């Protein structure tokens, strides 16, 4: 029993509204749940009543009623009034949560890729991946794009989701109430690893967010230790640099996630695993086993190469 209660308390769902937008959507959802329950109970209640009351009586054909105008008017009229009411609420809530963007510049541009998230902060020219920092107590405009197929941005406790369609700019407003970590996921089937395209939003108050943004804008630190330096040489010499960017180095690839501050992130591979040296090692030795279908091919690295690469990536605070 206590176990069940514990689980119920920790469950994340669309009903915990972390943003102003989600609060508005949920106010509508609760009204719908009340109306829907009423209709459901009405149907079930009538069915039970009819089933008990009118059980078969042998040899007496019941009165052959064909229609009843009053009942027909009620059947059409009452549901019609109900849906008209909800249509009104729908329009009102849409206008309140997602007003047209006009010419406003987005605060954050999020791009869906097979199978990771890229986040750009135009103000400071910062690019990061998978763990997305958003300031709280501020109305933020997200611009959503796609680098390949259709993806969908969805953090349940933030309210509306929005598709990321290649070639189209979509927008979403967010006013997050409290700092915290919010989980979400890609919600449009986007290929083999759709399951491991999880979103991690780190909502911070303005001070923390600005500090993070300033740190993120810095180029990568120069490695000091031996293994890390040889790791950097390997990284720049092999194909790694062709797909990944590490600011302040010659690595400027755009196909894979930006790794400039990889070591400051908590997870790897869009929420697939924790960011530890062992996990990084596992990933580098056999990407296609860890996340089959991912666009990082299986390289045949020897043990020393992997250790050096991990040592280098570890320095990218």
């Amino acid at each position, binding site marked *: 029993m206590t176990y069940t209660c514990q689980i119920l308390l920790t469950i994340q769902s669309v009903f915990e509204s972390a943003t102003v937008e989600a609060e508005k959507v949920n106010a509508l959802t609760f009204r719908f749940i009340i109306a829907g329950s009423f209709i459901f109970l009405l149907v079930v209640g009538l*069915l039970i009543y009819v*089933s008990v009351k009118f059980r078969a009586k042998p040899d007496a054909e019941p009165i052959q009623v064909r229609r*009843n105008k009053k009942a027909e008017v009620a059947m059409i009229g009452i549901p019609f009034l109900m849906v008209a009411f909800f249509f009104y609420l*729908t329009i009102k809530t849409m206008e309140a949560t997602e007003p047209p963007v006009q010419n406003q510049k987005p605060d954050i541009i999020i791009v869906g890729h097979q199978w990771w998230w890229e986040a750009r902060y135009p103000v400071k020219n910062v690019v990061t991946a998978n763990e997305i920092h958003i300031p709280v107590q501020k109305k933020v405009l997200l611009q959503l794009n796609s680098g390949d197929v259709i993806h969908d941005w969805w953090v349940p406790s933030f309210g509306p989701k929005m598709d990321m369609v290649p070639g189209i700019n979509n927008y979403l407003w967010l006013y997050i109430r409290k700092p915290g970590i919010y989980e979400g*996921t890609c919600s449009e*089937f986007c290929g083999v690893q759709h399951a491991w395209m*999880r979103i991690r939003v780190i909502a911070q108050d303005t001070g923390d967010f600005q500090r993070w943004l300033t740190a993120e804008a810095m180029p990568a630190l120069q490695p000091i230790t031996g293994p890390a330096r040889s790791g950097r040489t390997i990284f720049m010499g092999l194909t790694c640099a062709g797909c990944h960017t590490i600011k302040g180095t010659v690595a400027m690839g755009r196909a894979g996630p930006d790794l400039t501050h990889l070591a400051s992130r908590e997870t790897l591979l869009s929420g697939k695993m924790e960011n530890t040296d062992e996990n990084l090692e596992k990933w580098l030795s056999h990407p296609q086993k860890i996340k089959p279908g991912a666009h990082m091919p299986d390289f045949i690295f020897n043990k020393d190469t992997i250790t050096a690469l991990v040592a280098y990536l570890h320095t990218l605070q």
Partner: protein
Amino acid sequence: MGPVRLPRPQSELPNLNVSNDQGLLQWISTVDHKQIGVMYLLFSVLFLCIGGLAALLFRIQLALPNNNFLGPEMFNQLFTMHGTTMIFFVLTPAILGFSVYFTPLMIGANEMAFPRLNAFSLWIAFFGALLLYFSFLNGGAPDGGWFNYAPLNEKQYASGNGIDYYCIGLLLGGIGTTSTAINLIVTILKCRAKTMDMRHLPVFVWMVLVNSFLILAAFPAINAALCMLLLDRQLQAHFFDPSMGGSPLLWQHLFWLFGHPEVYILILPSFGILSEVFQVFSRKPIFGYKLLVGSGIVIALLAFGVWMHHMFAAGLGITINGFFSASSLLIGVATGVKIFSWIATMWGGSLRFTTAMMFACAFLVEFTIGGLSGISFAIVPIDWQLTDTYYVVAHIHYVFIGGSLFGLLAGLFYWFPKMSGRMIPERNGKIFFWLFVIGFNMTFLVQHALGAMGMSRRVYTYPDIPGYGTLNFISTCGAFIMGMSVLYLLYLLMKNKRHGKEAPGDPWDAYTLEWMTTSPPALKNFGALPPVFSERPFRDLKTERLGKKNIN
């Protein structure tokens, strides 16, 4: 254009020199609408087993968090094939099977208008299904989901042959469905008993007629889309490829312009079946005949103005979303009318709870759940939250199973004595009923909660988030109960087809013309027909014989 002349099978069809005792050859070469109807149903059952097996496999994969039973590639192929199979090669042949079997019988005709076209439709759809499955032997099945969004369906992202098989398989299926629709329309309009007015068509036949027009209008959209996709994939046409100026949203428009009417195509005949079942087992005429038929027509017309509610999260703007929200909400009114009309049919009746009637009553509950979750998708902000999650998965299954399939199962238990000449013992029927209802609700009710808890659909696995594991495990157990109940149904059908108690011509004291024939009906359905002056001609005949005054 001269007057339409319809071939009559007895005199004008080529004699195939195949007699009734030649087994398989006789079935394969038949143009008899009853045999074709039965083969449609067998076609449906075969693919129900295959599509169901796919579902059980991926439910095992989803039973536990971070499971490794199936890899992502296999999982994606299986869920795609499950959806595609169940919609195009299970529910579609099942509704067509009942339609071609019972439409001629219910309107006092001896055959479909075009018997050979009827056989052609069946076989081309069947070979379409086989071709779709052949993909497994040629590099892998399609893996883009049943609605197969662009640009994931383009060669660049799906380099195997699976999607090509999807296009050609569905095109062939679509040709079969369209030609059956033409056949049914002509049959209903031209082959009715002489005295049968359109106002006296049984509700089932009305729904088949409306449905056939719906098919004719909806299928061109998907056929066009499939051809365009084939051109894209084989000849680099770039209709849907954004990197070359194509539009991925165009695919969504074309697909859902077909796809949403398709949902109604799969349920309108079930509405018809249920209308027959409710009146016979309530011993009352259907309540609000005109209202029921009219709301069916309204649903069919509205069906073409609601497709963008599948795209509320695509960023189309408040005006467009508002329009499609309003049209989708109106569907709720038209469907609600039907639910209440059926309850009103039962009101004051003399109810017999046969297995068919049990399915009809369970339909009212399950379909109300599916309908209400459907209305939540018409309310745009709720759709923004819940679209593309397990809540949608639950919703479509409550509509397709709780709606279409429950109606079809009611029809199966209602018409099995007519089709086979044997009865299914009520006790066994009810065991199947309870197994199926429990399994079904156990599988899908919890999925509403999973969706609200943030589980998006089509994921091959999920992290160990509190609640996910437990609910998914319950869902998988339910799926296995459903699987077992389907096996039990097959056993019941086979056993009673051979050893069941012989069925009289009219075991249910029913109302429509098909029950006037022997069970099963002879090759030539009818000798003489009674005059028809209501939608219950057989009841009129029976009450007349009993010397009762016809109340209506």
